[in-house]
């Protein structure tokens, strides 16, 4: 066996010879190739040389294995990934100061919103009392339009007061700044 390339009609058998040796050739084709090899010295030699190389590769190529402690080290790494992050002393102090500052700012905003709501409710109540007095002055005129001007006016005043109180309560709970008052 001198040349690894088969020539002439034998060249067509080269891939088949490899697969025959590797046991990957379909049985029908394997029979045909066997028939050829039995009568062809060149292909027989080629196949022997190929088998010799194959045997050397089986023996000589490294067969590395994972070390026995691989699983332990993998699970240690996974455990480290799932462990909560522990802050160092210095960064922990800074983070705590930052958190305290944020909490103080939030408390201040809530207090401002509450004061704003009270201020707005007082102002609106004063406006309503003034409106009530104005309407009472004009009651003579209104009496000619509606039957009971007094009761109509009272219902209106109570409705508006309830609406203002509800809005102020919502603003305080949501921490929404009221008009004219910064957070």
């Amino acid at each position, binding site marked *: *066996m*001198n*040349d*690894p*390339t088969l020539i002439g009609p034998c060249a067509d058998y*080269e*891939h088949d010879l*490899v*697969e025959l040796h*590797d*046991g*990957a050739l379909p049985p029908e084709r394997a029979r045909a190739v066997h028939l050829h090899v039995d009568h062809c010295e060149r292909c027989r030699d080629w196949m022997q*040389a*190929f088998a010799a*190389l*194959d045997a*050397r*590769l*089986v*023996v*000589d*190529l*490294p*067969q*590395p*294995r*994972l*070390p026995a402690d*691989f*699983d332990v*080290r*993998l699970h240690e*790494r*996974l455990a480290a*990934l799932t462990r909560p992050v522990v802050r160092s002393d210095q960064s922990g102090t800074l983070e705590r100061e930052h958190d305290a500052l944020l909490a103080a700012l939030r408390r201040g905003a809530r207090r401002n919103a509450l004061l704003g709501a009270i201020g707005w409710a007082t102002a609106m109540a004063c406006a309503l009392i003034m409106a009530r007095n104005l309407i009472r002055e004009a009651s003579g005129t209104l009496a000619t339009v509606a039957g009971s001007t007094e009761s109509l006016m009272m219902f209106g005043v109570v409705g508006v007061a309830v609406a203002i109180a509800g809005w102020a309560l919502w603003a305080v709970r949501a921490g929404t700044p009221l008009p004219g008052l910064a957070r």
Partner: protein
Amino acid sequence: MDAGIEQHLAEGRHARAFDLVVPAYKDRVFRLAWSILKDRAAAEDATQETLVRVWKALPGFDGRAALGTWIYAITRNTCLMELRRRRPTVSFDDPDSTEAQHAAANIATGPAGDPERDNLLRLVETLPQNQQEAVRLFYLEDRSYDAVAEQLGMPLGTVKNLLHRARKRLMELARPDEVKAA
């Protein structure tokens, strides 16, 4: 084995599924990584990195590809990143280069004092990278074309061609005197 893993995945038991993935795939992932990286320590690191990535990504595995195909793709990507990281230092001429050291370490893993064996391993190193990977993996995977095709993510015909060309080249290189005489 994969059916059991997929059952756990379908029912949202990802940790249990991962516990089955590790024994089922760690050796095959390691052999694939070794065939690409040619270095035992680097292959071990790549195997660990691959399994950590699998652990992180397992809840998002949608089953569109086979589990093995998915894991081998992650392995190949992990190895390619390692090769890219090494690239600036790659030099086959410089005996101190990382690549040369890996090749030397690779040869040194077998019994010492066998010049024929060392010569054959050096010849394997001269093959194109894709042929080297196919040859190493083929002989690690009990000479299975299917295993090589699955792990390298290549069609079966491509793998057969790669192996044929690689071994024919090795036959040629292993007998230079006889080829010259012919």
